[in-house]
């Protein structure tokens, strides 16, 4: 069975120096010394940090250790400090004396050698004995004090922490500082904060949160086993076996996505042996079917269709990469520039300007002309080491991002890394950037190589297969053999892997821009790459540790694109969410006072639709790049209550109920009305692909899909083509017409899920031409009621959502 490189790759484990100061992590060989007590042998530096004594002196005093050895790369080389005369190694007794007439010095102990009469007659000057430890610090010319820069970037350890860890070492010499911070099993985790003393504190806060989320994710996914699955068999173009089946969803937010790994099992019967195989989800069909490409087809009985079981195969890869990135951030001082390091941790840093010659034009070939706010964004970003771009709905952030990447790539500072948390966003960006003429390589997870992509020709795996040069013919031959036979002899497999890796490296290195997901930036295939310039799109939908993965590859200039007024990252574990894991890096930087550059012209919504979001979420700054005329669809005759205001709130008095699964809500009346409105749209000339139905609950979603296909007044097929999904899965996308089914509303909460202003914002900004909202807003006036052919009164007037951002 083929295993990815991932499983043997140790994330965040670079060549981190063994001789790092056990307190603060400083590794400069001229500044560190080793405690020479055999049971200890720990390294410490000669900086005072936040304590009165230097770290090495602190350790010796607290541990009552007395011997020290210098580093092999220090000026004196690997040297145990000892009395030149008697060999005494107690550093508290040692000091230097010099010869009377020569520039020669030796270490001599205070007792007894310094007091020896015999010495007085010799060539040594005993009047000046210079103790090794002076003012609680080793002589600075023997053991250098780390520079201020080095000290600032090191772990900021307190005297209390030192005392605690020294106590801990007495019982367990291998204990780490992280062990001091570990919360108990039932304790709430430490919440995130705005500013961190150092990258170690950062890691101490985020590592447990990522662990919580990982554990929760694992528990949830592994409990997803389903029995009695009916399978339909097929064979893919690559001759691999594909199983199609329906994997029933429940309302626990678990969404299968292409690339997920599932195990298909057959228990066996009288005429068929038991069998199982792991495969990757390569697509989810509109009929809610899962297509699973099996890794191994041997032994499968394709004449059997019933009685299969499916389990989720949980992978820790993405979480491992986040943990690795945090470790690298702390331990490898070349991981990010000093400026970015301090900035990300919330330290006050003097403004820095990136000195680059600015281009004369800020647009890029192959892209639409930029508007004023887009030009401003590109221009400011190119001059700053860290910038935030806020792209409200439909304001062209992909085009702006592509233009930025184009100019960065033209500055000749090496390859630019472009990331986003989702594959969809990465593909969109890769396509736009490629349109500027830059050479783009899109790196996909190995598990997604069989998933179809709109930018397939840009993907690394495609380019490896199609790079048609003679040197590669060997690789091609082996590939062909592998495709035909399913596997290679072990020597051929070895050769194949080596050739493939070399080709991958060659292609990646020749690109101007590498595109991948944030987690993909931790791919072992990029382990030896360095990127000074990184752009992260949709960064407000990524957790901080996720965002860190592409940054710790040597970033000096970073652009975070996103919109903190739309939905943030999805955190499944409540405990981790409560502690603040759902806050993105972008948001924290905003709270720290970094002002995002806002794109201000929206090209999506009918001006009447953009008014409320603009006023409620963007201080009224959104301008319309589309006119009313451009958003009128000729020939579509829909009964909008107010002409030129293609929106209304349709009051529903139907009762919400708990769905059959017991975990979800549904509202039958509302579902029936969704069908009526959809039918009205279809009758008026709108086609199904133009319509999207948004609903917050899986119960309602399933009910609407089912209800429409059974009770729809028109052809069944029309309703099947209409997308019904959650707000979250519509984020980043648009439809011409949106129907929003709110389902719940009660006295206390108003309109259930729309209480989160960010979700409300996303829900209201998906439609280009018109929106209909169904709900039961008790506290609102100015709504419409009545049959669809005789609606009275209109105008959405939501309460202003509570403002949560400044």
């Amino acid at each position, binding site marked *: 069975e083929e295993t990815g490189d991932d499983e043997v790759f140790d994330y965040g484990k670079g060549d981190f120096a063994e001789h790092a100061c056990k307190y603060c992590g400083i590794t400069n060989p001229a500044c560190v010394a080793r405690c020479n007590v055999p049971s200890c042998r720990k390294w410490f530096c000669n900086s005072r*940090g*936040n*304590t*009165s*004594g230097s770290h090495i*002196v*602190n350790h*010796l*005093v*607290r541990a009552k250790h*007395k011997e020290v050895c210098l580093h092999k790369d220090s*000026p*004196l*080389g690997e040297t145990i400090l*000892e009395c*030149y*005369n*008697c060999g*005494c190694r*107690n550093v*508290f*007794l040692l000091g230097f*004396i*010099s*010869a009377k*007439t*020569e*520039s*020669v*010095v*030796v*270490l001599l*102990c*205070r*007792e*007894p*050698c310094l007091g*020896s009469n*015999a*010495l007085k007659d*010799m*060539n040594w*000057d005993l009047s*000046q004995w*210079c103790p090794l430890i002076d003012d*609680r610090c080793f002589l600075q*010319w*023997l053991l250098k004090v780390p520079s201020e820069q080095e000290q*600032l970037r090191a772990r900021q350890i307190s*005297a*209390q922490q030192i005392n605690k860890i020294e106590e801990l070492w007495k019982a367990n010499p291998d204990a780490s500082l992280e062990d001091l911070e570990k919360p108990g099993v039932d304790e709430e985790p430490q919440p995130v904060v705005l500013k961190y003393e150092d990258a170690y504190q950062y890691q101490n806060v985020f590592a447990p949160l990522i662990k919580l989320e990982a554990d929760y994710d694992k528990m949830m996914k592994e409990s997803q086993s389903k029995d009695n699955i009916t399978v339909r068999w097929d064979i893919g173009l690559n001759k691999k076996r594909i199983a199609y089946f329906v994997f029933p969803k429940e309302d626990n937010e678990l969404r299968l996505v292409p690339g997920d790994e599932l195990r298909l099992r057959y228990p066996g019967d009288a005429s068929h042996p038991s069998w199982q195989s792991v495969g990757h989800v390569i697509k989810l069909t509109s009929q809610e079917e899962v297509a699973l490409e099996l890794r191994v087809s041997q032994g499968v009985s394709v004449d059997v269709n019933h009685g299969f079981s499916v389990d989720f195969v949980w992978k820790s890869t993405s979480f491992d990469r986040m943990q690795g990135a945090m470790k690298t951030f702390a331990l490898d001082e070349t991981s990010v*520039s*000093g*400026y970015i390091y301090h900035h990300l941790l919330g*330290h*006050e*840093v*003097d403004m*820095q300007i990136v000195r680059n010659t600015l281009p004369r034009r800020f647009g890029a070939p192959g892209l639409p002309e930029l508007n004023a706010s887009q030009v401003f964004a590109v221009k400011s970003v190119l001059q700053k080491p860290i910038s935030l771009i806020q792209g409200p709905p439909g304001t062209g952030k992909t085009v702006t991002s592509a233009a930025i990447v184009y100019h960065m790539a033209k500055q000749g500072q090496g390859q630019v890394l472009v990331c986003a948390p989702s594959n969809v966003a990465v593909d969109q960006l890769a396509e736009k950037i490629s349109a500027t003429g830059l050479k783009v390589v899109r790196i996909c997870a190995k598990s997604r190589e069989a998933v179809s992509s709109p930018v397939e020709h840009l993907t690394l795996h495609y380019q490896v297969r199609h790079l048609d040069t003679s040197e590669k013919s060997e690789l091609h031959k082996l590939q062909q053999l592998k495709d035909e036979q399913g596997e290679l002899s072990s020597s051929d497999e070895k050769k194949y892997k080596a050739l493939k890796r070399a080709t991958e490296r060659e292609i990646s290195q020749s690109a101007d821009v590498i595109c991948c997901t944030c987690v993909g930036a931790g791919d072992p295939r990029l382990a030896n790459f360095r990127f000074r310039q990184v752009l992260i799109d949709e960064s407000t939908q990524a957790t901080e540790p996720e965002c860190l993965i592409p940054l710790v590859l040597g970033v*000096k200039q970073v652009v975070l694109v996103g919109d903190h007024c739309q939905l943030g990252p999805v955190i499944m574990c409540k405990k981790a969410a409560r502690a603040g894991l759902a806050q993105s890096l972008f948001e924290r930087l905003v709270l720290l006072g970094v002002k995002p550059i806002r794109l201000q012209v929206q090209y999506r919504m009918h001006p009447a639709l953009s008014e409320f979001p603009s006023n409620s979420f963007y201080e009224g700054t959104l301008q319309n790049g589309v006119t009313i005329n451009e958003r009128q669809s000729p020939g579509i005759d829909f009964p909008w209550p107010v002409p030129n205001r293609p929106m209304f709130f349709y009051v529903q008095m139907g009762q919400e109920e708990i769905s059959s699964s017991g975990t979800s809500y549904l509202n039958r009346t509302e579902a029936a009305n969704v069908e009526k409105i959809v039918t009205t749209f279809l009758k008026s000339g709108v086609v199904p692909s133009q319509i999207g139905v948004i609903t917050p609950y899986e119960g309602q979603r399933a009910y609407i899909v089912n209800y429409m296909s059974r009770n729809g007044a028109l052809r069944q097929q029309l309703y099947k083509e209409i997308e019904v999904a959650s707000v979250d899965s519509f984020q980043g996308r648009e439809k011409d017409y949106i129907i929003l089914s709110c389902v719940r509303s009660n006295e206390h909460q108003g309109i259930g899920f729309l209480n989160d202003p960010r979700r409300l914002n996303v829900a209201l900004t998906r439609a280009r031409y018109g929106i209909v909202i169904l709900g039961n807003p008790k506290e609102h006036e100015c709504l419409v009621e009545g049959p669809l052919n005789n609606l009275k009164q209109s105008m959405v007037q939501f309460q202003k959502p509570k403002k949560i951002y400044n």
Partner: protein
Amino acid sequence: DDEVHVRQKVAVVDPVEVADFDRELRALMQESLDSRKLEMRNRPTINMMLPMNLFEGPTKEHHGRGIEGESGDETTDEGTGEAKEVRVKVLVKRGNKQQTKQMYIPHDCSLVQGTKQKEAAELEE
């Protein structure tokens, strides 16, 4: 090229911690001294002749690192506030073998006063 200016809060050192640390440090020093006095009833033999090979080659060149200075020039560079350094040889024993290593120590260190006096005398000659 990665110069960064971090406006740092002044590290506040807890006076209780300082006092506690000083107490322990003093205790450790005293204990070290006392134990030696007990251990070393007999004075050790002194074996500290300067090895002859030390005097081969240039031995007393003073070295103002970063500045081209005259030997014996004691001024500090006002611009950086950095004292110039003197090159010395550190004599160490590796097993029974003597070795010298070069090291730079600040000009104003009490250790090199002797050598400087000697140098001044040489200059007068």
